[in-house]
């Protein structure tokens, strides 16, 4: 079972990496979007899923990455060299937010993150060095799609691998303990603030990397695109749909989400109902299966196991 899972992961990785050899640009674009979605969802899940700290402000980190890349590229720096700086800035900003905000628990933390995200968006659209609400364009001639595609896919694979590693590590156990009972975790020596800050910084850096690649790919950014609340929303929705706190959940959520996005955008009648669908999905998940698709899968597996009278353990979807 374990070997099967591992080879499935490996086969998908090889497939997407080799895709530029045999797929057309349109399909590659879809895969690019998928990789982007997987990165955002898995990165958010490090803090929101593993540690249970639900932030609705992740567009901030995407924006920091994107703006760092465009602003530096406009000053003649090679776009790919700007990636680490964007990641470092995002991690630093995550500290600035997290240090005070992690004193808040549960939903209070969530609301504080909405406040920060909105404040940053408003600032970005009214100060001048970001180009205001009209946004910024990358310098011409700085773009190679295949390179961008590879970077995005490799980053996606690394993030999922990182999540799988963290889940099994002592760090992951600390996060899980914090999620389930923060006082009990502290009573066993877990410095909850430190681990929350670490998870926040790590995921912020990853999201900023994706933001940089996003800016390079689209060659144009504006507060309305990278700091959008709807973006923060979809970042949260994907892991919740798939199953928070698991490794596969955010990936499943990202697949469904980007498929929905692509299909919906191609059907004119449905184009205007994506909020219905997202909102409806969110309501359904919260009402019936807070563990998302992974939870549904576990239930089905349990059902199958009891139907066939085997007493195999319910597979751990991690």
């Amino acid at each position, binding site marked *: 079972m374990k070997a099967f899972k591992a080879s499935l992961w490996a086969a998908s990785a090889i497939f997407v990496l080799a895709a530029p050899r045999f797929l057309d640009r349109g399909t590659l674009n879809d895969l690019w979007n998928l990789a982007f979605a997987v990165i955002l969802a898995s990165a958010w899940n490090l803090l929101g899923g593993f540690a*249970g700290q*639900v932030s609705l402000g992740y567009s901030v980190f995407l924006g920091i990455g994107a703006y760092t890349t465009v602003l530096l590229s406009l000053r003649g720096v090679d776009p790919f060299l700007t990636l680490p700086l964007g990641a470092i800035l995002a991690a630093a900003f995550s500290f600035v937010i997290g240090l*005070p*905000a992690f*004193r*808040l*628990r*549960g*939903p*209070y933390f*969530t*609301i*504080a993150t*909405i*406040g*920060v995200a*909105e*404040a*940053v968006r*408003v*600032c970005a*659209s*009214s100060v001048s060095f970001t180009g205001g609400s009209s946004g910024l364009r990358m310098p011409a001639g700085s773009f190679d799609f295949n390179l961008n595609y590879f970077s995005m896919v490799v980053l996606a694979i690394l993030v999922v691998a990182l999540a799988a590693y963290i889940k099994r590590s002592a760090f992951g156990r600390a996060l899980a303990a914090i999620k389930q009972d923060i006082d009990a975790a502290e009573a066993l020596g877990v410095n909850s603030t430190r681990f929350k800050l670490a998870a926040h910084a790590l995921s912020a850096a990853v999201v900023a990397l994706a933001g940089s690649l996003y800016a390079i790919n689209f060659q144009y950014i504006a507060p309305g695109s990278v700091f959008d*609340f709807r973006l923060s*929303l979809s970042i*949260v929705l994907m892991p*919740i749909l798939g199953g928070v706190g698991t490794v596969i959940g955010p990936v499943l959520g990202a697949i469904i989400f980007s498929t929905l996005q692509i299909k919906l955008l191609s059907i004119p009648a449905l184009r*205007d*109902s*994506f*909020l*219905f669908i*997202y*909102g*409806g*999905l*969110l*309501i359904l998940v*919260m*009402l019936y299966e*807070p563990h998302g698709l992974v939870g549904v899968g576990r239930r089905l597996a349990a059902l199958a196991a009891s139907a066939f009278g085997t007493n195999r353990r319910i597979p751990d979807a991690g």
Partner: protein
Amino acid sequence: MQQLVSVTLSALLAAGLYATMAYGLAVIYGVMRIINLAHAGFMMLGAYVTFTLFSRFSLDPFIGLVVVGPLFFFFGVVLYRAVGKSMARSGATPSIESLLLLFGVWLVLQNLAYVIWTGDTQSILTSYTMKSIEIFGVHVGVPSVFVFLASAASLIFLNVLLKRTYLGKAIRAVTQNRDAALLSGVDADRISATAFGLGTAFAGIAGGMLSTLMAFTPDFGRSFLLKAFCIIVLGGMESVTGVALGALVLAVLENVLGAYTPVPTSLQDAVSFALLFVALVAFPQGLPALFARFERKAIR
């Protein structure tokens, strides 16, 4: 001097609206310990319903509020009956699940508005929209005066409701000491439904009033939701006077910043969102608790 009067006056007028807007959130939080993100959606819907009443039935927006209030109370109760059971309190702190659930409701409401009214910007133009009157030598828009009066009326109505009726008293009891009230046998389900209805009605009324002051789209409501959070955080989340105090603090701050500092208007919203963050972190119990602490220190 002139400016001081003008700033004070506009802060006061804004505070009335802010208090109405925030009270809707506070009553639901107080009774159910739920953070109602759908509040923004109901404010937006309130604006659109007022708009439709005005444009289709030529009902004056402020008279329209009399329809909006009960209608939204009904919406709130229906919503509670539909999904409320699963939001039942699990403890002293609100659950993240209920927050996300109501977030979903907000998205659905937004989309509903897109479908019914399209995404175009709408506004309400009455005969008095552009008129202004002079108070203490300062020109004030007639709609903001009406908004203030309507807010005052609805808050007074609310106060009477809370003080005089059985359900009102029960709501206050549950808000102030949940465990004791629930142990003493009040019907938690009925009170939650009523609180949810009241909260929704206040959101609708606030939205209706906002529609007479500014243009709106289905996206409308988010920044006001954040302001409402800011207010209840400042006000301590559970008392009517606390909410009024929080509303006043925010309104004064915004108006003073606008009048006396070079902070551009476009950044004013950022100021109140940042204030939300600071307030949450610095006074997790709200200003009233802070005052109480000072008093105790002084006594000791």
